[in-house]
């Protein structure tokens, strides 16, 4: 579903690349963890996969088509949903309004359907009262659930998460990873999670380690292909 071809990235000096000629393939219906030391380039990789940045060389293909041809804005709008460590919700809105706004922007199939959005938030454990109050009044775990719910109401086949459990306690971490697996397995989406937590990675179907500028599969889900 998502493949990289000779993906290369550096910041300023070409010979000081972060990674080079990376060829990976991610399949729908699986969850993947990218692990590695801080500063190794995990987040850069995930931002490239999410279309938030452009590679210096190589290309990223979704369903066989270069994401550049989609246009990064269109790609982010229709192909990928992103979850951040800091939740990145609209702080002047309620949980419900956050979902409705995301559905409107991404032109999701259920856009404008408040009942659908409510149902998704309920599914993720938010009460009616919680979903209508300002998101800043929710706990960290609840806000991350709202962020995950946002990815679920959008129709993007790819979900990318950057340290989604970084601000959560152990219980919430387990719940959130379970939700991501649910998205992958039940909704048939491709979920890629960047994490430095071994426990989180262990719950994913595939684990990819970035070390010494090289990606290595520690655990391969079915149909994953190494570079």
């Amino acid at each position: 579903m998502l493949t990289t071809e000779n993906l290369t990235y550096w910041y300023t000096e070409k010979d000081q690349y972060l990674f080079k000629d990376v060829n990976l393939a991610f399949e729908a219906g699986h969850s993947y963890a990218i692990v590695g030391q801080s500063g190794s380039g995990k987040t850069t990789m995930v931002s490239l996969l999410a279309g938030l940045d452009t590679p210096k060389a190589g290309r990223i293909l979704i369903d066989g088509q270069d994401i550049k041809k989609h246009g990064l804005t269109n790609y982010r709008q229709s192909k990928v949903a992103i979850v951040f460590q800091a939740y990145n919700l609209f702080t002047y809105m309620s949980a419900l309004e956050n979902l409705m706004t995301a559905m409107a922007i991404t032109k999701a199939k259920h856009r404008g359907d408040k009942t659908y959005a409510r149902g998704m938030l309920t599914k993720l454990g938010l009460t009616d009262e919680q979903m209508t109050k300002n998101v800043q009044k929710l706990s960290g775990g609840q806000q991350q659930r709202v962020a995950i719910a946002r990815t679920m109401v959008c129709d993007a086949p790819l979900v990318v998460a950057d340290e989604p459990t970084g601000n959560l306690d152990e219980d919430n971490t387990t719940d959130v990873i379970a939700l991501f697996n649910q998205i992958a397995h039940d909704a048939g989406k491709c979920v890629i999670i960047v994490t430095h937590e071994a426990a989180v990675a262990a719950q994913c179907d595939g684990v990819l380690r970035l070390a010494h500028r090289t990606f290595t599969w520690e655990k391969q889900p079915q149909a994953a292909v190494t570079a």
Partner: protein
Amino acid sequence: MNFAKRAWLNLIAKKGRTALLILVTSAIMLFVMAGLLIKSAANQATENAKDSIGATLTLSANREAAFKKMRENAASSDGQPSQPSEKPSLSMSPVKLSTAEKIAKLAGVESYSVAVSTSANAKSFDAISTSTGQMTGPMGNRGGESSGDITISGVSSTAANANFSDKTYVIKKGRGLTASDEGTNNVVIESELATENDLKVGDTITVKNTAKTKTYKLKVVGIYKAKSTASTTMGGGMMGGGDPSNTIFASYTFANTLKGTKYKDTADSVVFTVSTPSKVAGVKKAANKLISSKFSLTADDQSYQMVKASMSSVTSFADKIVWLVAIAGTIILALIVVLMIRERRFEIGILLSLGEKRAKVIAQFFVELFVILLVGVGIASAGGQFVGDKLAAQVVSSAQTTTTSSTNQPGGMPGGQGGPGGTQGASRTGAPSGMPGQASQKAQTKQAKLATQVTFKSVAILFGLGLAIILIAILAGAGGILRLNPKRILIG
């Protein structure tokens, strides 16, 4: 239209910031509105002045021609055996009232007033004498005539006299003179003269002509009060006793009688009131065809010109207000928008990560400021008139000009001129006895009060300006958005 909904949600959620923006925008709009209103009112006032402020044409003896003739006579007499005792004299013809009536019939002339000035000697009462007002030396005589201690200012009506119309003189008791007093010996005297001589309305006083050959009985029908400033402003024009209290207003017919039979149905000067300043030139051209070179017509549309000049200064000031506030407002709003965008970088990053187009992000800010602008324009429309009126009063007050000029006039000059509105009567007092002294002119600009009014047009202009201001502010402030990389905002 999701950006519009987001804008609305943001405005509602961040009430403090919204209130602050409304306050700033309203203040900017209020001053722009005030500037627009003042400018509009100044233009209107100038237009109104064209119609409402009358201009005048003064018909009097042509002094230049008189001097020329005098010099010609002097030159021709040089060839004759010299007569040391004979000096060439300045002879100025009085204006015939029949000529004045012809001019008065011209299109554009609304009315005319007659002024005759002479002097007499008090008989049954005492003139007020002041040490500074003593007429001594050469100024007392003209052509062998002697000067009396009382100035007789012959008018067609006191109301038409500039001193009464500009409230320098005010009727305190009795009444002023009107056209019905023509041919009578009714007079209006000054209150100090009345007090000093214990005179009341209804009393009869007597004066003698300057040759002291005839005595005239005059009936006091009114007493006027001269402002204290009159002594300085009018002093130069006094011929009789020098003190303005010695000026007695009478019908011009009596003044002519006092001057002599040859002056019957004549006047020193006739002032024609022309309906609008724009018609002055036309009337003057037509009137010149009716008079000989012995007379001259002097146009006086100073009131209009002064109003026009001061309104032009007000308009210029209002223009500056509009531009300065608009530029300052744009800069202030742009800075606020820049700060607002910096504060909302994260929100922009989220929107971009969701795939929102940059144009729609800018559109969201535009909608937010548009709503604020609507409230600001509403407040400015409600309060603009109040601020405009206050500001206009201040501007008009500072633009008001007072011009004082002093001219040294040679002997024989028929008095000093009054002000921009044109004067007649008492102010032209020098004729018979000759006053070579100073004629002080004080011209007080008549200012049209600026009446600001909020109109649909002014609100529309304000709204258009406001729209331009927020557009520029947003483009300047949101320019950075176009360069923002969502990764840098959200992850970096």
